[in-house]
């Protein structure tokens, strides 16, 4: 548990190289971008596979409408744009042209959460999971590390269903996992434990895992689950973990309204599991300014912060 994790690269980098490899072998794969090939680390893709890159300029409504139309002609379309713009400016196109019209577009939200740090709330995306949870016919995936990112992109390229995937741009450690297989909709157990469960997604899984290490030093056994797919939720994994542990903490780089935490809370209460429970995320307030790391620290999304939250929660038990 305490061994130093190997530092991988940014999930963004993993995404772009995975997609390029797939597209080199599958000429049916297209990327549609809104002046975002640079932010999406897709410059090399555009140079190598110019025929498979569609640039629509800074026009996110058209970006998603065009993607849906292109997908309807049999292309596998990856629509790549900063998560904030992709999920708000073009929300109606996602809802109607992609999800409702059942076009298996992969919507890739780059620089998710507060990745843009000090650029501020216009560029943050802390609402997207909540919004897409309420839209029928779209899977929502928030991979934690390079492995999950790579597997998500491969799985999404074969999916017949719309998929939204989002990630950030800072290097992520390679996390251990109990089982090496990956499937959209099936949670990954990072480490097993019996006292407290961290159910986290995206870039918050790593600090949850580090917090588990700090707790272990205090004799507290923490389970860490990477709930990379927030929709459909792996209900079984949550229920098994929640029944076993004394307390549950959810962690997400998202508003505490409508995200992973509330999805878990709803599941637990409807299954009559009432235990000490805490949703760690971004409260309904003007997000503090700073770098992504500083913002995480401010809201307690660090190993130390989560360690303290866990201790406090267990004391309530």
């Amino acid at each position: 548990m305490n061994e130093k994790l190997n530092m991988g690269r940014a999930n963004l980098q993993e995404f772009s190289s995975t997609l390029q490899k797939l597209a080199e072998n599958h000429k049916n794969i297209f990327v549609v971008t809104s002046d975002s090939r640079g932010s999406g680390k897709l410059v090399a893709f555009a140079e190598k596979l110019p025929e498979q890159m569609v640039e629509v300029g800074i026009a996110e409504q058209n970006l998603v409408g065009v993607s849906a139309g292109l997908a309807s002609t049999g292309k596998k379309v990856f629509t790549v744009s900063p998560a904030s713009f992709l999920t708000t400016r073009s929300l109606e196109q996602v809802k109607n042209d992609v999800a409702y019209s059942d076009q298996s577009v992969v919507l890739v939200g780059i620089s998710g959460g507060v990745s843009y740090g000090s650029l501020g709330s216009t560029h943050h995306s802390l609402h997207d999971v909540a919004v897409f949870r309420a839209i029928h016919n779209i899977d929502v995936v928030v991979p934690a590390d390079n492995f999950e990112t790579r597997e998500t992109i491969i799985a999404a390229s074969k999916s017949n269903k719309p998929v939204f995937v989002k990630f950030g741009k800072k290097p992520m450690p390679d996390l251990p996992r109990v089982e090496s297989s990956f499937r959209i909709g099936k949670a990954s157990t990072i480490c097993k434990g019996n006292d407290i469960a961290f159910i986290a997604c995206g870039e918050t899984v790593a600090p949850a895992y580090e917090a588990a290490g700090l707790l272990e030093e205090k004799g507290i056994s923490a389970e860490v689950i990477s709930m990379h797919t927030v929709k459909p939720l792996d209900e079984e994994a949550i229920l098994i973990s929640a029944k076993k542990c004394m307390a549950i903490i959810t962690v997400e780089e998202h508003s505490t309204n409508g995200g992973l935490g509330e999805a878990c809370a709803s599941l637990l209460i409807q299954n009559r599991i009432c235990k000490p429970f805490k949703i760690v995320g971004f409260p309904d307030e003007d997000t503090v300014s700073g770098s992504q790391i500083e913002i995480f620290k401010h809201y307690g999304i660090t190993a130390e912060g989560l360690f303290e939250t866990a201790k406090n929660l267990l004391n309530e038990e």
Partner: protein
Amino acid sequence: MIKKFTNKELKLKSVQYRIDILKYIKMANAGHTGGSLSCTDILNVLYNEVLNVSPDNFYDPGRDRYIQSKGHSVEALYVVLADIGFFPKSDLETLCKYNSVYIGHPTRKVNGIEFNTGALGHGLPISAGIALGAKQDDAFYKVFTLLGDGELAEGSNWEAAMMAAHYKLDNLVAILDHNALQITGPNREVCSPYPIDEKFRAFGWNVLETNGNDVVQLKETLSSIDFETGKPTLIIANTTKGAGVSFMENEKKWHHGVPTDEQYELAMEELETKLAELV
């Protein structure tokens, strides 16, 4: 494969379609009457003369595509699709009824419909994407979309207009159902889209103009499109909202008005008389 009808047969179809539109709207006690009557002749000529689309080839990747951006005029689309055999006309007796697939906007649950539309400003981006797909495949099918004039206020149309010209999508045709009236009143008063022709030309489009309630002129205009100009085409089809039923014409209240029994009788009488005159 493309069906050919005489002008008289097409004119007869238009009247019959209008009778059916009103019949099913009356039965449903819901529908977008004015806009459906406005675009009836456009859909008539498209499906009976222009589009390479039929129940036999609907899953053929080489079929032409039709995307109805002004989705609220779905009753016109339903009666035309029924007429060309996508489903029995009697299905429309369930229009807007509980658990019917024939809802008040186009849905892919209905045989013959390509995309779910209804929210405005979506058809042109989708159609541009399809046209781009055709170009990528070196396919020769064409993409037609029907826009309302009120929906030109949606910015997404202009995003797509710019991009369609950039990609030289000369396989894309947008037909504007230019009845000049939207739910609040005349376009010119609500938020003027004019000059429409100059705007699209400035965006790099070919622009044609025709009488959108005259099947003969529509046929001529649609058959005159040059698909090798490197430019997408806009056809401004000048129409009358509520066309074919004199008391519904150019009256904004018929945007989604449903006729009373008395009004229905009056409308049917007028249309039946036209039908008898044409036979």
